[in-house]
């Protein structure tokens, strides 16, 4: 290919062009857009962002040397390099060198492993956040293909719209009356899978007011893509106003719930005054009772908490 004495500038120019293009395109495409994970608006999401940046920086200690060495080796020892380079065809290995590169990644992973152990416990979705303020309880039911949010303490419910007060812990209890789904609000952090007949927990807290997106991350059939919903993080008084609005809406009992639970797409936002306070438990028990086995992860969680 390359003649002796002539450096292969073509590929080099190509590589530089690709890198430049990525940077320029990246800046152009991303400017002014909401990069939810890197611009968190909740305590969990901020911790997760810090963890993410820490991990990237730490792994760079292995990634950067790899790239430098790779390109050095390719450039320096290319066939036809006019500069005389050493050639040792029978070189089989070098114990010291090999120990070094077993060592470097192992060190990095050890550090990251410790961080992982600590942060996994800190960020356990079951761990309830506590900032001294009274938490808000929200019960979530994933339906085909919409989200039902129940506020048992406020006696209201909403579909495809979540209103939360800023700076107050939100303790979600979640279940599904549909195929397995997962609820994710990137700006607030941590998603969680939900399944029929099981209830699970997630605790999040918003630290800014604003409108965020929430979604289902696990395919549930036809209307899966319609399960994006809006999360309104508002101050206390706006939240109270919203509750008052919902209190005047139509009532929600088990019968209406069954109507609502039928598969439907793009039904928009709905508000309800909650008539049946036991609705969530009824939905969970619908499947538990027929199984004869305790699927309730709540009790598992209690058991686990006890053992800590």
């Amino acid at each position, binding site marked *: 290919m390359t003649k002796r004495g002539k450096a292969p500038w073509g590929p080099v120019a190509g590589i530089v062009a690709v890198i430049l293009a990525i940077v320029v395109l990246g800046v152009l495409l991303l400017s002014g857009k*909401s990069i939810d994970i890197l611009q968190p608006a909740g305590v969990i999401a901020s911790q997760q962002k810090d963890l993410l940046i820490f*991990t990237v920086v730490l792994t760079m200690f292995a*990634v950067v040397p790899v790239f430098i060495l790779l390109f050095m080796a390719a450039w320096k020892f290319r066939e036809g390099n006019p500069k005389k380079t050493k050639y040792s065809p029978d070189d089989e290995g070098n114990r010291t060198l090999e120990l070094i590169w077993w060592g470097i990644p192992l060190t990095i992973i050890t550090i990251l492993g410790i961080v992982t152990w600590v942060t*996994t416990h800190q960020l356990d979705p079951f761990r309830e956040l506590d900032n001294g303020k009274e938490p808000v309880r929200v019960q979530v039911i994933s339906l085909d293909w919409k989200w039902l949010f129940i506020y048992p303490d406020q006696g209201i419910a909403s579909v495809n719209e979540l209103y939360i007060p800023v700076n107050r812990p939100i303790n979600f209890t979640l279940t599904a009356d549909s195929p397995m789904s997962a609820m994710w609000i990137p700006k607030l952090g941590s998603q969680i899978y939900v399944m029929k007949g099981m209830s699970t927990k997630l605790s999040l807290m918003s630290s800014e007011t604003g409108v965020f997106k929430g*979604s289902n991350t696990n395919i549930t059939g036809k209307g899966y893509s319609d399960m994006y919903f809006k999360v309104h993080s508002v101050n206390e008084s706006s939240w109270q106003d919203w509750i008052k609005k919902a209190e005047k809406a139509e009532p929600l009992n088990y019968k209406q719930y069954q109507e609502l639970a039928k598969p439907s797409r793009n039904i928009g936002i709905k508000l309800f005054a909650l008539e049946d306070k036991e609705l969530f438990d009824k939905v969970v028990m619908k499947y538990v009772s027929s199984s004869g*086995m305790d699927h309730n992860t709540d009790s598992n969680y209690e058991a686990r908490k006890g053992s800590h």
Partner: protein
Amino acid sequence: MFGRLSLDAFPTDIITIGGVASGGAVVLAILAFITYKKKWRYLWNEWFTSLDPKKIGTMYAIVAAIMLLRGVADAVMIRAQQAVLSQTDLNLIDSDMFQQVFSAHGTIMIFFVAMGGMFAFINWIVPLQIGARDVAFPLLNSISFWLFAGGMVLMNLSLALGEFSGAGWLAYPPLSGLEYSPGTGVDYWIWSLQIAGVGSLLSGVNFLTTIFTMRAKGMTLMKMPVFTWSIVTSMLLVAFVFPILTVTLTLLGLDRLIGTHFFTSDLGGNPMMYINLIWAWGHPEVYILVLPAFGIFSELVPVFSRKKLFGYKSMVFALSSIMLLSFMVWLHHFFTMGAGANVNAFFGITTMLIAVPTGVKVFNWIFTMWRGKVKFTSSMIWFMGFAITFTIGGLTGVMLAVPGIDFQVHNSLFLVAHFHNMIIGGVVFGFFAGLTYWWPKFTGWKLHEGLGKIAAWLWIVGFLVAFLPLYALGFMGAVRRLDDYDPSFGWQSLFIVAGIGVMIIGLGVVTQITQIGYSWLKRKQLKVNSDPWDGRTLEWATPTPVPDYSFAKLPIVSDRDAWWEMKHAKTKVPTKYEDIEIPKNTGYGVYIGLLSTIVAFSIIWHIWWLVILSGVALVVVAISSTLREKTERVITAADIIAIEGKRQRSVL
């Protein structure tokens, strides 16, 4: 009479009809061409019934290549929908169809492209590298291939008859259960994978036995070429985890067929068990595919650096530790199930540990180049592309292994970008590098280098353009498998860029097809001798084209780079030959594959009489296949002298 098969099973929407019509037209054209050329007898005698691993390898490669085209077409449809169609009023691809397309894309790419490509290399190269004329169980090898082919046919039949699964490539219940997916789609998915999977399992056992019992004299385990080592680790994984897939698919199939309650939501079924089982297979599966790619690079980097592989023992140790670790990480696919912090942290740490041996391999490849004379053939361009993309993929993989981060990016497009990074950057680039490297051994002529380099560059650049935006989209909250999204999210421009990337990859594929076609036309000019790259391992010791018996005399090995040593020690070419027995052709592989496919087809459509009929026929044929008396044919010494004599003139 025909179960649930009726006229309603035929497609009615325009895109599927178009796909079926064009696909069907191509198939018919090929069949007509073969008939016109009167080649059926030739194909049957020389290919379909052949037990020669080299020919079986070629057939695997052809199936995988065709499936790659369909997989890429599916990818184009996915991106077209996300980048443009979903944002217009055109309703060309509805949700149902979109979900079938991405489910088919994943299933095809993993089971039929990557697995097929891998078995093509294994069949061709492993026996040659260990100095064997054959595999341990030649008929079983043919059966494996025809089961694989049967699975492929069934999978594609779903286009024309009925529907395909829309539940994603791993079909989690309860979505894949009867309640939510009553159609034939999930059944097609289950039974085409079932028969292809059984084929893979049998191949695993076959090649392990081959490598353990049929190595050339003197080739101890620690003198085996690294590619063969990578196949040992990969096939061990196959033998350990494919039974899990068989069980999982069967249980899901039983839930759908006879009303059991393994994974249903009622009467005590446990869908979470499915997710555990499928990933207990699914995670090692990724390593089944990528370890051979590591093996391929470990062969060609030393050859093109004209230097021994750096740290052979480290490499073998790294392969083995990756294999062992891959059993202990499956839970990282569902951290967000909320299994509890101790469990999640444990599986997170075992997962990131895999980065250690993988990193060691990269360093060893780099230091194989170090103080070498590196020739940048297109195989090496693929290697460079691999080294870069795979390292990026490794970085994002470590990020995903931290449960705290995974809780934020799981099932987002970040995850999609990550595993494409590993599978395209790792497996696919590895296979293309290997294809270019071994092509002269397969055919006797080289692939055109210039076109090969253009293809490699298009793939690498296309890959970056197609998948870097997905990392960004994941960070912006875009989840996987979306057929529609709110324009106000501002994602469309990134999806369009990703779509352009797919088109660049498509250009790469076109270039590769052109490369093969052009090189075939110019095969006289591109003709090379049997060892064009100055190879180091035994496959290059055979004449090209490789005769049926591969080695006229079985080689005796004294060193790791066996052929390199033979060349340099100027080992005399033996002149005294003996008769060689090689397996006789038989049609049993075809019959068993065909009957299994019919059984599966009739299960899918609930045609019970046909299930029984073809099932009984299958058992009878299988039994009679074991009763064959004369299974070998003899190639006489005189024939060998005639063939080998020609070789001496053409090579030396």
